[in-house]
């Protein structure tokens, strides 16, 4: 029994680590499409709805590679043009606590896919689904909502803010950019 437990521990460890470092670049149909409706509000008459989470979200949300790819796409697809490096500009800031259309990865994915009326374009046809998930995972990481062991780090570029896995600490840094 104890041996079994001892076996189990590294196994779980392995699974957790694999998920964090997995580098699948081919879409996995087994994970589902992630096309579920995501309400913008939490108000729901008739009782609370179970929070929407599917395999797809989970496989992107805490994956270091996908978040890092998301960071690359964030600038390649000009997200940074409007949202800067999370601080916002033409578009709202993404690194703060305020979410106009929901902070879950599903909501962010839906925002990218469908757009939002006050200026967020709809990228549904323009970005493959997996890359939207990568972007959504990165956007969450911008606000410090990703596990620090998987969050992407700074770019070899101008220092715009402390690297993503240190963002929650940024307030304590005072003057540090």
């Amino acid at each position, binding site marked *: 029994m104890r041996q079994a437990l001892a076996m189990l521990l590294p196994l779980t460890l392995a699974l957790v680590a694999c998920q964090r470092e997995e580098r699948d670049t*081919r879409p996995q149909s087994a994970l589902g499409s992630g096309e579920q409706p995501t309400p913008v509000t939490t108000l729901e008459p008739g009782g609370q709805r179970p929070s929407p989470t599917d395999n797809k979200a989970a496989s992107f949300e805490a994956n270091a590679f996908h978040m890092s790819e998301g960071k690359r796409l964030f600038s390649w697809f000009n997200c940074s043009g409007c949202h800067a490096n999370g601080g916002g500009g033409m578009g709202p800031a993404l690194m703060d606590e305020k979410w106009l259309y929901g902070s879950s990865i599903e909501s962010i994915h839906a925002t990218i896919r469908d757009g939002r009326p006050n200026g967020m374009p709809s990228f549904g*046809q*323009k970005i*493959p689904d*997996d890359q939207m998930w990568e972007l959504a995972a990165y956007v969450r990481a911008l606000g410090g909502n990703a596990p620090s062991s998987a969050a992407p780090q700074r770019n*070899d570029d101008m220092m715009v803010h402390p690297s993503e896995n240190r963002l929650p600490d940024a307030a304590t840094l005072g003057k540090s950019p």
Partner: protein
Amino acid sequence: MKRLAFMALAPFCVLLLQGCAGWQSALDPKGPAAGELAWLIWFFTALCAVVWVLVMIALAAPLVMRSRPGDEPLLLNAGAERRKMRVVVSAVGLTAIILIGLTLLSFFANRTLAAIGSDAALTIRVTGHQWWWEVRYENATPSRILTTANEVHIPAGEPVRLLLTSTDVIHSFWIPSLAGKLDLIPGHMNVLDIKADKPGVYRGQCAEFCGAQHANMGTFIIAEPRSKFDAWLNDQLQPAGAPASGEAKAGADLFLKRPCVMCHRIGGTPAGGTVAPDLTHIASRKTLAAGTLTMSRGNLAAWIADPQGIKPGSHMPVADLNGDELNAIVAYLEGLK
């Protein structure tokens, strides 16, 4: 035992004969720089082989000539030691002379190489990307600056100056049959002068490990007579031709509607991505995906349908197109000569 050793060596000799050919070989020089280097390689190899053979003879001699296997350890004879010392010292002296010679040789070879491009009329900026090459032909008239990808056309017989840099990681530009390699380093600009003696197609590939698809980061230098080169440059400067067929027309629309437009540029259309290869004249290139596939309708379709199967980890995503859409886009791209 010696026979065994010979048997081991025999296949090498066969391979040696088989080799030397190929369009990506340092031993098959097609330009003055590579020629100088190939000569240098052969000279060094020959000299080193001679030295090696001498050492092996010196090693084998006592074994062949040994009379009595030892038993009691020998005590030293001062006179014999001194005699041997003279031999060893002269061997070391000879080594030193050879090395000085080789140093001087490589120093002068270096100077010869440096002289090749001093009067280059054409400057081409090559920027390394994960995992493809951006090629920009500089021109005093900005509207004649051509940006293309993965293939470098040069006029044969003329020195060409390449400016090498990178926007992501370190790559290395290497066309073995024309010149030695030089790194593309972010934050640095390197200058490589090349010259192809004769028209031809010379393959090269990235020689500095640059991540997942380092293996599939090929490039071609296509040397052409000056007139052909100029004509090629003029063609390439034109915007992409209008889609010829109805299917191609649909493909052009799809190109702008689907993920393609997010990264690629096609001159004359609103597609203006710069982070991926310029596709304005993609069908005029020899290969797809930086030397990974030869250019053909089938490969084009295969590449668009499953880039992650062909070049796993590359930045080309699977675009989720249905069969008709795929065919339409292929039809369109195929027409971009």
